[in-house]
Structures are given as C-alpha cells and as structure tokens.
C-alpha cells in the first residue's frame, strides 16, 4: 500500500515537473534562450591585482594602508562613511598613540554642548568612530542625485573579490561611446537605451554599468603622499583598496597567523591518531596462517 501510494505520488511530481520542463522548452524554442542584455555583454569581472594581504601568508603593507587612509580621508570621506572603524583602530596602520590622537582631533565628530545640550561638533578622540558625512540617508540621497553613497567599512567583504573590485571600479571609468567589449561592440551601438543618463557614469565593472558616483580619482597627484610615493591614479586606487581590505577585516593578519600553527598541530595529532589506530587494529586484522 505504501509503495502504491509512493509510486503514484512520485509519478505526480514527475509529471508536474516535466510539464514545467516542457513549457520552458517550448518557450525557449519559440523565443530563444535567455536574451542578451547590456549587463551580460558589457559587465566585466574585476581586474587581476595583487595585494600583500593575499594568500595564506598574506600581511598588510603598513605604508600602503597609511597612503590608502590618506586617499580615503582626502577623497572618499566627502561622501562615504566608515562607521564601523574607530580612530583608535588607526594604530593598526602603524601610527603611534600620539599620532592617533592628533589624527582623531583633526576630524569633527558630533557632540553635545555641555551647557545647552544642543547638538554641535567637537574634535574627535581616539575612541570615537569615523563621523558620517551626511546626517541621515535622506540628506545623503538629496545631496547625491538620489543615490546614497554606501558605507565603506565592509565594502571589501561585501563584493565578490572585494579589493580587486574596488580597484577596478576606481580605475575603470571609461567613455561608453568608444569603449569596446570583447566582441568589439560599443554600448552606444548595441544597447543605446543603456547609455548613462544624466548624472550617471559608465563603468564596466559596476554590475549595472552606470553608477551615480563621478570618477573620484581624476588626476595624478590628486593626493600628496606623506611618504613621497608618486600618487598616480593607479597607485591611489590600489592603496585605498588595500586600506578598505583592512577596514573590512582588521583581524585578517591574526587569522592567517593563527591558522598555520593550528593546522600544523592538527597534522601532527592526526598522524599520531593514525598510528595509534593502526597499531590498535593490528590485533584484529586478518593475517595469513603461513
């Protein structure tokens, strides 16, 4: 009885799903498989770019993080917040305690007037978090053509291949009228409807190709690096990507450094466990009489 009901149930679901398959196949046959879209033809994966924190032995380049921080401070922070990072965290970048305090004090953070209780601003202290450039989402949207600049704290983890994505996006702005995809087509020819509208900028690394952020890094030397490194657009993009990789996961180095001894110990213990298992089982493993 169970088997009879089972067979009937099984056939029911099989028929239902094969009916769906037939319907889908008919649609595919008459209308073709999946249409080409501007995204499918022009979106590109992030460029290959190497960072010192890549790989199992990866570590941050402190000088690069400091340069990246400078780019964030002088360029990105005008629109993008970094709300999960506190000034005290900057000591990870190799700054001394005094430098962290001075850096914090160079930012204005929201405060309260101790006498009147009114909202005001005061210089930041080490325990403060990076202030937001806009009071709220409405203000952020209003100031940026309805696009809210996302918080950057976790950006490097919130996108596939995050640091490479950020780097590619920053250097990837191009002219949609002349940019050619792999097939040698231009967006203007093939998908004129997908050309960037007013206040939008074409960038093949952005998922839907057109984004509201104007190219932020526009000229070499836009930032004057404290360590004398030449601030080419490429260098600035790389540095700020490395900085955001750090801000997304400040514990990355410790994680990788902890991993090796843990795995080494486990290998050692597992080999011992294997030997112990082998010798215990030796007593009951079949042997030949001769």
């Amino acid at each position, binding site marked *: 009885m*169970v*088997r009879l009901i*089972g*067979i009937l*149930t*099984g*056939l029911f*679901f*099989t*028929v*239902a*799903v*094969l*009916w*769906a*398959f037939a*319907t*889908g*196949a008919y649609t*595919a046959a008459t209308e073709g*498989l*999946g249409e080409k879209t501007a995204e499918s033809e022009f979106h590109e994966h992030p460029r290959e770019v190497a960072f010192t924190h890549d790989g*199992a032995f990866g570590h941050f380049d402190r000088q690069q993080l400091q340069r990246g921080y400078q780019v964030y401070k002088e360029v990105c922070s005008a629109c993008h917040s970094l709300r*999960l990072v506190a000034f005290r965290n900057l000591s990870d970048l190799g700054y001394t305690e005094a430098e962290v305090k001075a850096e914090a004090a160079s930012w204005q953070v929201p405060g309260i007037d101790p006498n009147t209780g009114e909202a005001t601003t005061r210089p930041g202290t080490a325990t403060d978090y990076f202030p937001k450039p806009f009071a709220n989402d409405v203000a952020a949207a209003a100031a940026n053509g309805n696009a809210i600049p*996302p918080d950057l704290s*976790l950006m490097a*983890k*919130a*996108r*596939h291949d*995050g640091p490479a994505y950020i780097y590619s996006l920053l250097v990837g702005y191009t002219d949609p009228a002349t940019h050619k995809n792999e097939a040698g087509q231009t967006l203007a020819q093939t998908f004129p409807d997908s050309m960037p509208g007013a206040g939008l900028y074409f960038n093949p690394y952005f998922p839907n190709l057109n984004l509201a952020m104007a190219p932020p890094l526009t000229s070499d030397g836009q930032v004057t690096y404290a360590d004398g490194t030449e601030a080419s657009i490429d260098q600035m993009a790389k540095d700020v990507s490395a900085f955001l990789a750090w801000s*997304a*996961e*400040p*514990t990355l180095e*410790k*994680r*990788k450094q902890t*991993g090796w001894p*843990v*795995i080494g110990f*486990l*290998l050692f*213990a*597992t080999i011992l*466990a*294997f030997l*112990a*298992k082998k010798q*215990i*089982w*030796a*007593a*009951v*493993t*079949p*042997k*030949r*009489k*001769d």
Partner: protein
Amino acid sequence: MSFPWAKHYEPKAPVMRWIDEKLPLPRLVYNAVGAGYPVPRNLNYMWNFGVLAGFALVLQIVTGVILAMHYAPNATVAFDSVEHIMRDVNWGWMLRYAHANGASFFFVVIYLHIFRGFFYSSYKAPREMVWLLGVVLFLLLMATAFMGYVLPWGQMSFWGAKVITGLFSAIPLIGEPLQIWLLGGYAPDNAALNRFFSLHFLLPFVIAGVVILHIWALHIPGSSNPTGVEVKSESDTVPFHPYYTAKDGFGLGVFLIIYAALTFFQPNALGHPDNYIPANPLSTPAHIVPEWYFWPFYAILRAFTADLFFLPAKLLGVLAMFAAILVWFFLPWLDKSPVRSGHYRPLFRKFFWFGLIPAMAVLFWCGGAPAEEPYVMLSQIATAYYFLHFLVILPIVSAFERPEPLPFSITEAVLGSDKKAVLGENTTPAT
C-alpha cells in the same frame, strides 16, 4: 545490551565503583560508546560520520553559546553587534568564523552520513526507528541553520527570512496569515529576529535530545555494516572502544584539518558577500541564494515553473520541496529488497551511482545558480529523477532485482577468498 557476549562494566578504580553504584552513568557511557558496545568489525570510513556529526553539534553549541554572550538580537544593532564580535571581542573573529563554517562542516558530515544510509540501506528493518529519528534530526538541523543565518541581519539574512517564510504563503487559505504570524509582522523585523534567535538557541538542545534517542534506537539492533549481513557470532564484532574510538579519532583529525583550513584561510568562501551589507527592506540583492546546504531543495522548489491544471506553480514547488525530504521517512517501506548493502544489489547500485548521485550533484549546482537557463531545465530533469528514484524505481527494483550472493557472515567477508587467512588472534580483547 545487544549481544550476549557484550562485555560488562567492571570498574577497577574504587571511585568509579562508588559513582557507578550511586549513578550508573559510567556504565551507560561504557555500554554506549565504550568497550561494552560490540560493533561489526568490518565498518569502513563511511561509518565515521555519525561521531563526526555529534562532534559538530558540540562544536556549534559551544561556539554558539559564546557568540550569544556578545550578540544582540535587535534589528537596529544586530548587524553591528556581529561586527563588534569580529573586531573587538577577544578571539571573536575566530569564534564567529568557526560557528559559520561549523554549520557547513555539520552539513557536509550529515549529507555523507545520509548517503551512507542510502547506499547501504541502513533504514531497513530492524533499524527503521534509527532512520526516522535521523530524518527528524535533519529537519531540525535545517530549521536551526536557517534561523541562524538570519541572525547577522545582513541582506541575505533578511531576504532569506522573507523568502523562506514566504513558502508558507503558498498554502491555500491560511498561507498569508500564517506567514504574518511566523514573522510577527508584515516583513521580517524585530519580532522575527527575536523569535529566530530564541529558537536558534533552543533547537540545538532539542537536537541533542533526539540524538540521544537516535543512538539509543541504534543500540537495540546494533550498528549495520557494509555487507548488510547481521552479526551472527562474537567473531563478527569488536568492542567500540578502543577500535572505533581510535578510528573515529583519526577521522576527526582529518576532518578538523579541512575545517581549520577553511575557517582560517577561506572563512567567507561558503558565505555570500551580500550578507556584509546591512539588511535593507527596500532593496533585494540581484541574486539571492540560500546557504549551499539548502541548494538541492531550493533547486527543487524553483523547478516547478508551470501551473498544472488548478495547482499553481508556487504551491507545487513548495509541496515538492517538503515532499523531497518527507519521502525519506517512507524509505524503509518503499524499498522491500531483503538485501541491505548496495554492494550486492547490481541494479540498485547502478541507479544509485548513475542516477541519484548525478541528480543530487545537478540539484546542488543548479540551486546555487541564478534562475536562468540552462539551470532551470537541468534542475527540472534532476528533480524528476529524484522523485522517480525514491518513489518509483526503488519499489520496482526491489521487487524484481536478483541480488548477488551474500557472504555467510561478517567474519567470512573480512577473511575474503584467501583460505589461509585467519582473524587476528585478539578477537576478544580483554578490556
């Protein structure tokens, strides 16, 4: 308990004797996972995964209880409290990565454990109850994992909660009120987050309770084995301890190496980047997928794209997804072959390796892919096979198949065709 030759607990140390007299807990452990449990001597490494699953449960409870000390189940601060764990709590990053990847570790061993059961027909009499409790455990585990994934309150958490509770809205008449009741609102928010947290904390302990029943039920007939031939004599078994404790210890070591490599070097590989974006009720991520361990069932859900007469596609998909697991409950009665092990069932074996395994692989693959062609069509074929396999092929094959000759006993199977082989002299280790 199960075999007359099972060794009896004889505490040597006076303190153990004293405890055993007042509370026979040492005796219970001895008979459950000690030398007092005779186990077939021919178990292969596929029999490691029960112990590994038990380890994973302990791992998840320990790391989970600790994370709960730092996590705040409130929609306004949940996301930030997870980042607080990652950035400020001592070793918090490790504990969270260990918990998140521990869930994957748990499902890997559970799937292997279940597929071991499929191939060796571990569900057959007299172990039906072990199997039924196992399916209950799998359902509880899925519920726990789903609610745990909601807690970080990222984009995938939020939309996962919305979509999965949305499944219930497919039920005619009561569907929509049911979804609103489950969420405590019209969309996932504080009420949902709080109850998911509460249940996510509770369910692992329910699981632990059912695990005890699962092991209890196993100890009535004793463990099955790769030949499927029941234990006949003392030479067919060895005591669980030290033989299988040693073997499980080695298996655990191998698994921990893989797990540690993932946790320390690719901790986000099995997660989704979108869950590092705080939940936004106004914007759905472009490509939402559940965690990898739900992919086969998610693929089955999405395979039903066309209405069938008066049955809407949405309802069919939801029914099929639940039926895909519920069908496991009936396996002991669907498969009537008197032979257990797939090793001695030529036809069954072919359907297993060339039907069920590829179908599951396709469902895994398509469940994680976007809802486009060719993934939808592939998952439709695989779904059709999935239901045919369990509900049609298995009953019919078991009725017509001619099994290969079985060994007389486990001992004979272990000795093989070599007439000169003898068992190790220590067939009954004194412990």
